[in-house]
């Protein structure tokens, strides 16, 4: 928090429609449980959740805008998890981020990403032509790798059962990851496809709390998927992408999309359960700690399928403490990871996670979210944790018995 010094002029309570601001913001008891649970908890500075809640409740918009808290908040909702009245912090921060006076606080990378995504369809600006070229090249390699002429990385295949929605990194700096995912679909023996019309699981409209932007981005996913006539949309491992597409889409676009939404670890786990996909845990003969991404776990109630899948891919799953709904954010949530200038701050917010990993005494950590994955890798290097970081689906892909 930057603006904590005594001010000359008192803040003036201006707005009285606090009840519009969250489902039950008015019911705040000022108990301070939120502050105690904040992911910044053993760090200097950072947002003080109770202050934000109380300021929002009193209509002290200026204070919130000037607090410096808006883009320091990780939107992890750990405070909300502990709130005895269930007041949703991410909603309050969201309103602050979309406040007219706070527009200039949106990190430059995020502003740029939003613009590119809306214009090109991909947050990194990958065009349709580049997409097709990349995927076709990958598909050729895939045939060789699988030593099977039928093996393929299809796109725009109408009537496929599954549509895979990748993370932009899978078509940029991390192409191997897309191949790894293709292997999983191959092993499932199901029809699947990519779509050249949309390539991106992310929805940064969520970070800037611009409902119109978020709606457009959601429709960029929903409409082509419906036109392809798929049954199920399989999401790349992405925390906020899952949260938006799984839990917020209906509200955003005003209707239920015509398909189911699952994450790729859930997809794989289904096929492990019915015996089609076989995994060899001996590929990873070590213990792996599981990290709960806030967007999947606390915010979307997805706890067990990725854990179960991980258990099939290594010697033993180690729980970090605390975990599940009380899990600690990797330190890159709320759009912080998407802002390249935030690294020094993320090494502060990641401290709690680093301590947790150290306490668990593991050499490997896995998370079903590519953002968490990147942040965990960075804190491992920064705090010299010496742990290797992977995603769950990627580990599964390596364990495939074909």
């Amino acid at each position, binding site marked *: 928090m930057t603006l904590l010094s005594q001010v000359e002029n*008192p803040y003036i309570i201006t707005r009285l429609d606090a009840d519009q601001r969250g489902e039950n913001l008015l019911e705040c008891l000022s108990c301070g449980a939120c502050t*105690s649970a904040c992911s910044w908890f053993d760090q200097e500075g950072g947002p003080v959740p109770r202050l934000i809640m109380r300021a929002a409740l009193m209509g002290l918009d200026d204070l919130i805008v000037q607090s410096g808290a808006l883009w320091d908040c990780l939107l992890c909702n750990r405070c909300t998890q502990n709130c005895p009245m269930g007041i949703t912090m991410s909603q309050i921060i969201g309103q602050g981020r979309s406040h007219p006076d706070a527009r200039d606080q949106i990190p430059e990378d995020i502003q740029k990403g939003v613009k590119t995504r809306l214009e090109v369809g991909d947050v990194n600006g990958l065009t349709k032509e580049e997409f097709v070229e990349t995927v076709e090249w990958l598909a050729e390699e895939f045939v060789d790798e699988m030593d099977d002429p039928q093996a393929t990385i299809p796109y725009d295949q109408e009537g496929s059962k599954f549509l895979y929605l990748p993370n932009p990194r899978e078509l940029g700096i991390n192409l191997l990851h897309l191949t790894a995912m293709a292997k999983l679909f191959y092993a499932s023996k199901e029809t699947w496809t990519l779509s050249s019309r949309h390539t991106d699981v992310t929805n940064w409209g969520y970070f800037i709390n611009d409902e119109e932007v978020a709606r457009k981005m959601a429709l960029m996913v929903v409409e082509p998927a419906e036109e392809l006539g798929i049954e199920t949309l399989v999401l790349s491992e992405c925390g906020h992408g899952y949260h938006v597409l799984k839990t917020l889409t209906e509200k955003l676009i005003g209707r239920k999309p015509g398909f189911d939404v699952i994450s790729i670890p859930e997809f794989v786990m289904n096929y492990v359960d019915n015996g089609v996909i076989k995994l060899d845990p001996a590929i990873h003969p070590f213990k792996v700690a599981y990290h709960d991404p806030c967007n999947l776990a606390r915010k979307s109630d997805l706890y067990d399928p990725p854990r179960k899948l991980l258990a099939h891919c290594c010697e033993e799953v180690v729980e970090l403490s605390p975990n599940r709904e009380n899990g600690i954010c990797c330190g890159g949530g709320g759009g912080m990871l998407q802002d390249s200038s935030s690294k020094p701050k993320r090494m502060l917010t990641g401290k709690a996670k680093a301590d947790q990993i150290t306490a668990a005494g593991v050499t490997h950590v896995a998370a079903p979210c590519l953002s968490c994955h990147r942040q965990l890798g960075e804190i491992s290097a920064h705090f010299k944790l010496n742990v290797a970081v992977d995603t769950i689906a990627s580990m599964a892909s390596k364990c495939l018995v074909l």
Partner: protein
Amino acid sequence: MNKHALEEKTVVVVGGGVAGMSAARHLAQHHINVHLVEKSPTLGGNASLWACMATDTCQNCGACLSQELAQSVANKNGISLHLNQQVTAIEKNEGSYSAILDPDSPPLKADHVILASGFSAFRPDGLLGQACDAHPGVITTNQLNHLLTNQNLDRFLTDKESPRIAFLQCVGSRNREKKRDFCSQVCCKISLRHINKILHMIPGADVTMFYMDLQVIGKEARTEFGALKDNIRLVQGVPAEILKGNPDNPLTLIHENPDSMARAASHFDLVVLSVGLHAQPGTAGMVQGLDLPVNDWGFLTNGIPGSSGQSSDPGILVAGCADGPKDIITSVVEGENCAHRIIQSAAEASQPSDPFPVAVMGDGHAGIETAHTLSALGFDPWVFGQGHRRDLPATLNNYIPDSRVVSVTGYANQYLLTYTAGDEEKKKSFSLSCRAIILAGEDQFLPAGNDLGIKSDKILSLEGFASTLDTDPEMIPDKLAFWQDFSGPESKQSSRQLLLLATRAAKLKKTVTVFMEKMLVHGMDGQRLYDEARKNGVKFLRINTPDDIQAADQSDIIQFTVKEVSLKGMAVSVESQWLILPDRSVPDVYFDALADLVNEPLDREGGLQSPNIRHRLTGSFRKGVFYTGTGHDDVTPDDVQAELLNICARLWELKHPQDPADPGVVINEKKCAKCLTCLRVCPHSAIRINNGVKPAIVPEACYACGLCVANCPALAIEKTDHSDDEMIAAIQKGQCVVFACQRSAALAAKTVFENGTLGDQDCQVIEVPCACRISTGLVLKSLARGPEKVILAGCHEGNCQSHKGSSEAQDVARFVNSLPGIRENQSVFWTSAAANEGGQLLNIIQPS
């Protein structure tokens, strides 16, 4: 009274905790057949698991009453105990009831059922993070009680001179996410008593209390808190998670630093979770099929405010925590009240009505309510006014508005009041014979002082605002501010009135701000009112001290600048056109004189009635003298109704005395020197003077404590059932002898004998009616039989039913030790031991 009508009745009491036992005891005293069903193997309920909170003095928690009740219930004719049995259902057929039992036994048939199924303590599993669940340093209130009872706390905090101990309030209370969004009412007070006890045991302990809104309320609670608060750290804000640390700092709590506003980590050796009181899970199931509403939280509810004990089924009564969290003493009283309702209804038809005058001192709210209630139940109230109200309903015949009671003599059933009344010039003296006296004194409500520099036409009292709201709502401006604790600590009544008024104003679309140091919710009703106010948009700004608010009167508006607790280092600005302040409530000036008249003490805050739990909520050291109203406790009108029911139960006892009272104390006229020492020392005013000179015992007033026996210089007063010689006859050489008060130390000793830690050969326990019965002579006589040591054991100071028992016995011990030939402190000891302090007593008998 028609005894047969009562003997034919059968009542099933569900639950053997303090409420159930109290009900059963009272019913059995009136010859009603009782089935007392308790699911555990022993009587006592939750209260029996609680530690004694006494330090040098009793802290008035009432936990020891459970032992005393269990003792009296277990040995009572007419009570059938069903231990290890649970009532799973209650069936109603044509006005009678059957309680179905598990394990399967024949159903119990009854005319009435008293539900006293109590509460269960919240289990905090998983609530405060995973460190909490398995860590030995994180304990609940109940576990702390266990450690205290077993004297394991010091062992637990080994080698630490200043152990760091945190108390976390509202664990599992005021939590909507856990579907427990009510205030459990008793936990703040329990924690304060625990802290007091720990600081007494470990003076160096470094104690921090984390709270939401500290509920400091009730008899002498503010005085106790005042003495404690400078020795502990108080932090507003409740940590939500406990983190595991290292051996040096085993536990870490993250919270807001109350001084800066930064997030702070504090390290502790022990964390006590003050867990909430929740509905007993079986209660709702038990009443399925009956027309008894259960609220969202699983508590029984009848929706009738102030209807202590009643349910919506006339044959079923509810006592104790089955309808919401309560403290021990209130639960005991409710048990009695339920029993009384049954007795009264059974005996009603056959009851001819004799005149039964009762003097009611006070014509405030409680006085008038008292008069109404007494009239309705066939008593004859005489109201002695303090000039509060003059236009009373015509139904109250005997109202003397401007009276001065000059003297009170006599005793229960035969009081004589002398009073003057009439105009100044024509003042006359009168007298009234009455059977009982009710002191219904009301606190004085003075207008809040105004040193804010605000014009007085902008400041209203709650009453003033309420009447404007009723009569002239369009007069009310758009912006309103209330300041809850402006006039000092808020009372339960004023905080509830404030919440209601603030909500009403908010519903009229007014902008309403409430300034407060804390919100006094205290229970389910208060929390509901607070929730309602917040939901309707009333803003609550929290301050630390009155200095955190600056006010500037700017002709049409008052401009407040407020340092809100959660916005450290900042100030917010609030505008308001009116400021509404609760009145200041203080003990009335005449309380002193009133207490003098009836020869009763005041409490430490100048309120009527001693805090001694042996007589509360409504009784006194003197039979036939009762208390109700704000003058003796922080009560709402609903509480007054419950108090009045209890008073009526006791008046009923006076009206229908049971077996003729024989205190077993006689004055031997031949030996009596008529020095009147007995008259002077008797704490119960149970000595009268016959023919102007001869003292005599009044059986109706006597508690048989034996203080007069021990104090009579001529040895003229004798206890017929326990003569000195009889008592000491069994003492053998070399033995340890304990003279033990029957209400405290004797019960504690019993537990030690029962669990086999001590045998008869080790120790001779001699039960006495009260520690004051242990005279110097008795101790010397027993020393002559050559015991190894003599222990005088009784109640903690302040807990003695006869007021002075403990201090008298201490004097005796001191005196005997000062006598030549007695080696100091080697053979005669005094110790206080409550009924629930068997372990402590054992330590004295057999020091390890």
